[in-house]
C-alpha cells in the first residue's frame, strides 16, 4: 500500500482519538505496516471539534500528518465543516448519518457511505460509548485499510473486560459497512 491517509473527526468525548489509535495499533503491530497517528489538540477536553489522523504505508512514513485524506470518517457536524477540506478526488467519506449531513460540495468522485453508528451503538449494542467501535468496523469493511483480525486483537488487548460488547459493536459496524458498500449514497 502506498501512503494512505485517514482523517477522523468528531466532537471531544466520542472516542475519536481512541479510534485512530486502535486502527493505528492494529495496522502497525498486527498488519505490520508503517503507521503514524497524530491528533489535533484544542483547549477543550469535551465538545469542540476533535481530529485524529493516521498515515498507513508499506514504506517508512516521511511527513507524519495527512496531506490530503484518502478517507474522512466524521461523526459530528462541526468536525465535518472544519475538516472536510482537502479530501482527495475519488476519496471516501464515511459519515455518522444521524449526526452529519453532506452540506458542502465534495471533490469529484467522492463516495459517501452513511453509517448510523451512534444509533447502532445505542439501540443494538445498547451502549452509546461503542459508537466509535461500530464506526471502526464500518471503516474496515469499506476501506480494507486495516485488518478486522487486527482490530479485534487490539481491542481485546486494550479492553479485556469488554471483549463481548466490543466484538458485537465491531460486527454490527462491519455489517453496516458491507451494506453501505452495496449501496453508497
Amino acid at each position, binding site marked *: 500500500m502506498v501512503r494512505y491517509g485517514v482523517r477522523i473527526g468528531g466532537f471531544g468525548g466520542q472516542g475519536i482519538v481512541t479510534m485512530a489509535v486502535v486502527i493505528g495499533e492494529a495496522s502497525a503491530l498486527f498488519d505490520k505496516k508503517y*503507521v503514524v497517528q497524530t491528533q489535533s489538540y484544542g483547549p477543550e477536553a469535551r465538545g469542540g471539534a476533535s481530529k485524529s489522523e493516521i498515515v498507513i504505508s508499506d514504506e517508512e512514513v516521511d511527513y507524519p500528518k495527512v496531506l490530503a485524506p484518502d478517507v474522512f470518517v466524521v461523526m459530528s457536524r462541526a468536525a465535518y465543516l472544519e475538516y472536510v477540506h482537502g479530501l482527495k478526488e475519488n476519496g471516501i467519506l464515511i459519515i455518522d448519518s444521524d449526526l452529519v449531513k453532506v452540506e458542502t460540495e465534495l471533490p469529484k468522485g467522492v463516495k459517501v457511505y452513511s453509517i448510523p453508528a451512534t444509533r447502532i451503538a445505542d439501540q443494538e449494542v445498547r451502549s452509546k460509548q461503542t459508537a466509535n467501535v461500530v464506526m471502526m468496523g464500518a471503516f474496515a469493511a469499506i476501506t480494507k485499510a486495516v485488518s478486522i483480525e487486527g482490530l479485534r486483537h487490539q481491542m481485546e488487548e486494550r479492553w479485556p473486560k469488554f471483549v463481548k460488547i466490543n466484538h458485537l459493536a465491531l460486527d454490527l459496524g462491519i455489517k453496516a459497512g458491507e451494506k453501505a458498500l452495496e449501496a453508497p449514497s
Partner: protein
Amino acid sequence: MPERTMFTMGDIACAEGALSAGCRYFGGYPITPATEIAEWMAVRMPELSGAYVQYEDEIASITSVIGASWAGIKAMTATSGPGASLMMEAVGLAVMTETPIVIVNIMRGGPSTGQPTRGQQGDVLQAKWGSHGDYQIIALTPASVQEMFDLTVRAFNLSEKYRVPVFLLADEIVGHMREALVIPDEKSLKLVSRKMPKSEPSEYLPFKPDDDLVPPMALLGTKYQFYATGLTHDERGYPTDSDEVQIELVTRLNEKILRHIDEITEVERYFLDDAEIAIVAYGTPARSARRAVKDARAKGIKAGMLRLKTVWPFPEEPIAQLASDVKHIIVPEQNMGQVYYMVRAFAAPTPVHLMTKPAGTPQLPDEILRKIMEVHAK
C-alpha cells in the same frame, strides 16, 4: 525485560527510553506538550521503585534533579518552552558543578505562552545559550518515536560520560505522534555510568579532571567529603576570584565537550553522494525534507539531506564537508532561523537558503520541493 513492541507516543517513548537508561528519578511540573512524559513516569516509576516527584515549578524540578544526580541516581526532567526558560538558571548550575542530568524540551510555539498544543523549533538556540556565561551542553534532536527512545538513552549516556546537562529537543509533532516503538532487550542496551573516584578520600580533589577533562564524581553521603558550588572553584571545589582559575575552569568546561565533538555528533546522510543541493534539517521538517528529496530526484534534480541528530555541540565538520560537496544548502526550520546561522557560519562560501516557518505545521514536502526547484533554477 526482553524486547517488546508498542504503538505509542513520542513522549512515552522518551519516558521508556529514560527508564531503560536507568533513570529512577523524575522531577517535573505539568506542561503541554510534555505532560505525557510526566504522566507516564508517575505510573512507571513506582513500579521500578523510582520516584516521580511533582514540584511547585520548573526551577525546583530541575534543581531537585541535580540533587538526585549527586545522590547517585540517574535523573531527568521534561518540560516545554515556558518551563525551559525557568530552568535556565539551573542549567548553568549543572554545567558549573558538572552534574549529569537530562532535560527534555518538547518544543511548542513561542514566545511566551505561545501555542501550547502546537509545535515549533524555537528553543534550539536557548538550549545552548539560555543560561548566562560561556559553556557547552549537548542537545539531541529526534525525528521519530523510535528516536525519542534511542536518543533519550543516548542523552543519559552522554550526560554521564561527560558530566554535562544533555537536552533532548523534540518538536511537539514528534512528542505527540504515535508510531511503532521497539524497546530492545535491556541486556542489549549499552549504558554508561559516570566515573567514580578511585583515590583515597583524603586525597580526593572533586574537580581535578582526568586526561579526558572529566573529573571523577563522588556522591553525597559517602566517605568522600567535598564542596560543590556554582561559584568559580579550583580543583578542591573552593571558590576563588582568580582570573587564572576562572579561565582554566571555563576553558575546560567547554573543551571537555568540544574535544569529543566527533564522538558526540551524529548525523544521517540521505542521498548525498552525488547531491548538488542539500537540505540540512532536524526533527519533523527533516521528515518533510526526506519526501521532498525523493520527489526532486524523481524530477532529475540531485538533491540530498543531512539530518542532524545532534545540534549541540554544533556538527561543524560535517557541515563544512557538506558545503564543499554541494552547490547549495537549504535549511528548513520550524522557527525564524536558528540552526541556519550556525550552518551559514561553517558552510561559507556555499550559499545557504533559509526556509522559516514559526508555526505548528512544519514546511510541507511540496514547499521544500518548490524551494529545491527554485534553487536548482539559479
